[in-house]
């Protein structure tokens, strides 16, 4: 589904990302881990054509992301709070994204209905602008918006950060459900090794912009990762 081909990014002389080749098949749940500055967000930004790579290409469903915009139709993403429109209420924001993704008001209502547990009554009907919600609640809204319009690819940067334990567990369930039928490809980055190993079948470790590990999940994965990071 997604092919990352010799992607590198340089700012002046410092190279922040240098990825040889990663092939992500359709329906895979792909986890990206690494310490601060490893290049996780940069890679996702390049994947979303928000930053231009210095070299290399990324193709999403055979579409080169920097050459055509057609990948946007089947790709949902949430990188950070700047993806939210602060002066809208959550409902208005969902309506806006729904409009862009070809959903009418009833579709949006129905779609949001599935997430009433996840929202835990803190998002809908609050009469608050998104900018006035707490960080965790902003994240909830952003993640759900990324899932609108039946995307085939979902990209979430640090989705577990700032969420309360209950919501983390619910989010893990949501991600598992997404990839259950091998229809939706999910890319997740996280600092939390437990969460990633739980939801992702494949985990790539980045360090200073380079791929240092690329493992299929097994019983030992968590141990292996903990050992790697405990140096």
């Amino acid at each position, binding site marked *: 589904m997604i092919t990352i081909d010799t992607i590198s990014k340089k700012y002046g002389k410092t190279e922040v990302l240098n990825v040889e080749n990663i092939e992500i098949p359709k329906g895979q749940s792909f986890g990206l881990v690494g310490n601060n500055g490893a290049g996780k967000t940069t890679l996702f930004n390049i994947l979303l054509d928000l930053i231009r790579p210095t070299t290399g290409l990324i193709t999403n469903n055979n579409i080169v992301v920097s050459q055509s915009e057609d990948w946007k139709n089947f790709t949902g993403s949430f990188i950070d709070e*700047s993806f*939210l429109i602060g*002066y809208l209420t959550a409902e208005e924001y969902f309506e*806006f994204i729904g409009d*862009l993704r070809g959903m009418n008001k009833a579709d949006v209502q129905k779609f949001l209905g599935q997430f009433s547990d996840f929202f835990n009554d803190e998002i809908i009907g609050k009469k608050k602008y998104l900018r006035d919600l707490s960080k965790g609640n902003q994240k909830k809204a952003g993640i759900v918006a990324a899932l609108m319009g039946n995307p085939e690819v979902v990209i979430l940067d640090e989705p577990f950060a700032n969420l309360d334990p209950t919501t983390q567990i619910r989010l893990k369930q949501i991600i598992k459900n997404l990839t259950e039928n091998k229809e939706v490809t999910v890319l997740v980055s996280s600092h939390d090794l437990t969460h990633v190993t739980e939801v992702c079948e494949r985990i790539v470790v980045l360090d200073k912009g380079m791929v240092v590990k690329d493992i299929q999940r097994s019983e030992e994965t968590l141990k292996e990762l903990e050992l790697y990071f405990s140096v």
Partner: protein
Amino acid sequence: MISHFLKLEWKQFFRSSHWQKGIAIKIVMAFLALYFIVVFLAIGVGGYFILKKQFPEQDPLQIVNSYLLYAVLGDLIFRYLMQKLPVMNIKPMLILPIKKSKLVHYVLAKSSISFFNILGLFFYIPFAVVLMIEGYAISGALGWLFAIILMIQSANFLNFLINKNTIALGVISVVLASLIGLQNFGIYDVTALGGQVFDAIYTNPIYSLIGVVVLAVLYNLNFKQLKNLVYLDEAVSQKVVAVKSADLSFANKLGDVAPFIKNDIRLIWRNKRTKTVFLMSFLFLFYGLIFFTQETYKEIPAMLMFASLFITGGFALNYGQFIPAWDSAHYKMLMSQSFKYRKFLESKWILMVVMTSFLYVLSFPYLYFGVDIFLMITAGAIFNIGFNSLFLLFAGSFNRKKIDLNKSGFGNTQGTSATQFLIILPLMVLPMLLFWLFNEFVGANSGYIVVAAIGVISLLCKKYAMNFIEKKYIENKYVMINAFGKEA
């Protein structure tokens, strides 16, 4: 400790990306500041002699004194609208081992050296110096100056009390209203009283010490009030107001652009700065009154054209020049969504055109000034709709400055760069020049016709122009994402 604070201030000022970039705006701001300083200095130095020449039988100091009361009132109103207590930036300090009282003293002290307090001194100090040179009593002039400085500082602190406290505002308003009432109905000559007070200070400089007492009391009140408010949920944070959602489903008729139009309407109405822009555009409607009522401008039709453009163009100019920076906070998200960039631009265009047309309808009363003026406004409106709205969209592709929508609107230059100054040329100067050329050398109504024709031609070429503009925006996508991601 204070030196720490001062160092932080220094760094905050010089390290803001605003300062580090945009030479053009720096130069313009510096010139503007210099201009005001020079003007005030000139009035301060020359004021004495001008008054002496105009009113030879009166004492210039007494004339100034009799108007000082109005200066104080005007100053207070101006401050109430514009000046805010700088408390936001102490948030990171609250958890550090620094006494709260020290923080409060610091905030208050910082406020006393604000621009509002300095500007006036450029007039008062030279004026006092001239007084001394001209043979007024040195002690008297110094006492007078001292009293003025105390008064400015008192106004500074009084303003914060009024701003934070509705009761204080009520009391001040009642006092002001009654003073104006007394003066107006001739019951008591307040102006003369104000004059006498300052005259008395000149004769007996010791009276200026009363100002010290007033200032101390006001400072203390501020200190007490603020110290109670230095908590995250009080002064430091901003109030959250319950949302009032208006039904915007009428916009759905516009089809593909509807989501963006709805978004833009909410953008304008829910953010301070955009709301100011919106409301200001109605003030621009009155711009013509300044020009059309004066005989001098009747000889220079090009200047009348200038005013005519402003009457209907207030919204398009003020809103349009910052496209797409209004959406800078969530620009990344927009760029990862699937929509034609055209729709985004189209919605901004519709907004400008609708508002300009609306303002044009509101400008109908200008018929009172005659058909010529009204034709001019009409030509200006057509130019604004046809040419300016497209040109502003085009110029927007050069915008590289983030706008933080939560910051206040009035006098906020965030997002301003050289672009904003450059675009004025074609927007304003071109139609004026053309109008002047044709009006002067071809005559008849050719001036109006040319200006309106450019608008019509632009409107006819809209499709091609939009294609070109859209391409420009897409070309600049990465640079804009990068620039909008930076703190302003």
